[in-house]
């Protein structure tokens, strides 16, 4: 077995960077689907961290957690896409910066 030469902290930093990219994307993109994808990116960044930690700590909990997160993300995607479809039907747009019927 090849001993990994990349220290685990690198994976954690990778997770943090991915998470930040996700946050910035979610804040700046216009298309609701892209925003949602950015949020998914955040979740996956967390998954990377979980797997790293799980391996590093030699405990199975983290990997377990990842499976659940993936399942939840899938469910969220299903619901989210349904909402976007309905949104498109009623408003003919899915740009989040055009959705401000309710404010103040």
């Amino acid at each position, binding site marked *: 077995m090849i001993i990994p030469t990349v220290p685990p902290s690198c994976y954690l930093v990778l997770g943090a960077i991915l998470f930040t990219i996700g946050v910035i994307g979610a804040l700046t993109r216009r298309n609701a689907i892209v925003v949602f994808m950015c949020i998914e990116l955040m979740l996956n*960044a*967390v998954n990377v961290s979980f797997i790293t*930690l799980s391996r590093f700590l030699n405990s199975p909990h983290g990997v377990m*957690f990842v499976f659940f997160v993936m399942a939840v993300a899938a469910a*969220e995607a299903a619901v*989210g896409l349904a*909402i976007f479809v309905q949104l498109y039907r*009623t408003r003919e747009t899915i740009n989040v910066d055009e*959705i401000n019927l*309710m404010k103040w």
Partner: protein
Amino acid sequence: MGITVPQINFSIIAPELIISAFALVVLLLGVFFPRTGKNDYLGYVSLVGIVVAFLYTFPIMGKSQYAFNNMIVADGFGVFFKVIFLIIAFLTVLISIGYARRVDIDFGEYYALIMFATLGMMLMAAGTSLITIFLGLETMSIAIYVLAGLMRGDRKSIESALKYFLLGAFATGFLLYGMALIYGSTGTIILEEIAAYIKSKPELLRSPMIIMGIALLTIGFGFKVATVPFHMWTPDVYEGAPTSITAFMATGVKAAGFAGFIRVFFSALGAFQPDWIAIMWLLAVATMTVGNVVAIAQTNIKRMLAYSSIAHAGYILVAFVAGNELGTASILFYLLVYAFMNIGAFTVVILLGKRGEENVLISDYAGIGFKYPLLGASMTIFMLSMAGIPPLGGFMGKFYIFSAAVKAEYYWLAVIGVLNSAISVYYYLRVTVFMYFREPEREITGLTFSPASVVAVIISVWGVLYMGIFPSDILALAQRSITGLL
């Protein structure tokens, strides 16, 4: 690393199982026996399910049993919250019968999703590991995303679903990251083991990683209970969602959020209390103040109640900061009485609407007090209770919360809290003023009162009055429920 077979004890999660089973039944009934415009029977089936689940909370009352590898527990705290959730679900279904038909969302899914959301809430309160709490939270949230947008043709409803969904998922990211960091620092996801590990390693108290985790958890839970500055979604979502679901969210989701919040912060992260106390103090003050002050300027009653619900989250945070036994017990007490008064108020909002005309502006309430005296009186009771006027339940709740703060020597917090509740009188009373002291600009006619909703109003009035006049039993129960938590 051997695999141990977890001890399985279904009786611990009997209420959850029953709720799930009934939810599936309702879902299937809705699919195979749909009756256009006559789907109220699904609501009654749901009510039966909720009552049965409620009955099954009795066997697990007063015990403290773990099951499923310490992932879930049946303790006083969890059971008390389960009772709150089931009461909320019961009232929500009651007010939905009739209303759901009016706004054309009375499919099987509607009732099933309410029950699934309730299931999620119960898991959150009973969960003792980060996974169960996370799953409970997501089960609840995903169901609510759908419910908020269920009025498919209504642009506001869809918009509220979109906002809740995007921001909810966004907040989940933070919550999850926080859980990951805590898991990384302690090597476990079981709350008690986390606490034990922190106790065995005092140097962890200064570890940036775990503290970062706590900060991210604060954001995640702060979003669910709608504390400032994570509250921005609340008014929009509450305004756009179907009113029955707004009531459900304002009470159930908030209570569940607090259940998870308290469980994680007190049983796992109690050692960090000195760290989180100041930030919670700040959040409590900001939440109360922004909620109350902004509520003053509202013209839509659903929006006003949304800001009011933010303010109430602030009051509860005051007790959270106090952190003593009375404080935690008063949170349970407050959430229960809040469920009664808030659902009651939303029920009145529902009853004053009719198909195609929801009458949700406060100015629509002009003259209602004399036209529908009992409805007006009930609304007055709910408003006064929320404002904290004795002898109503809301007053006792606030009394306990602020006494807890004074007891824990957070005098300023108590002062700010009392000042805030003085501000809140202004906008609660405004509703009463409109109901009794203003001439209606246009007549509201042709209202039909669904009997189920009327029952919900009666139950809510009873609850508010009972908890105001005989609060001691319930407070004593709440105090018993939290033993072993702190």
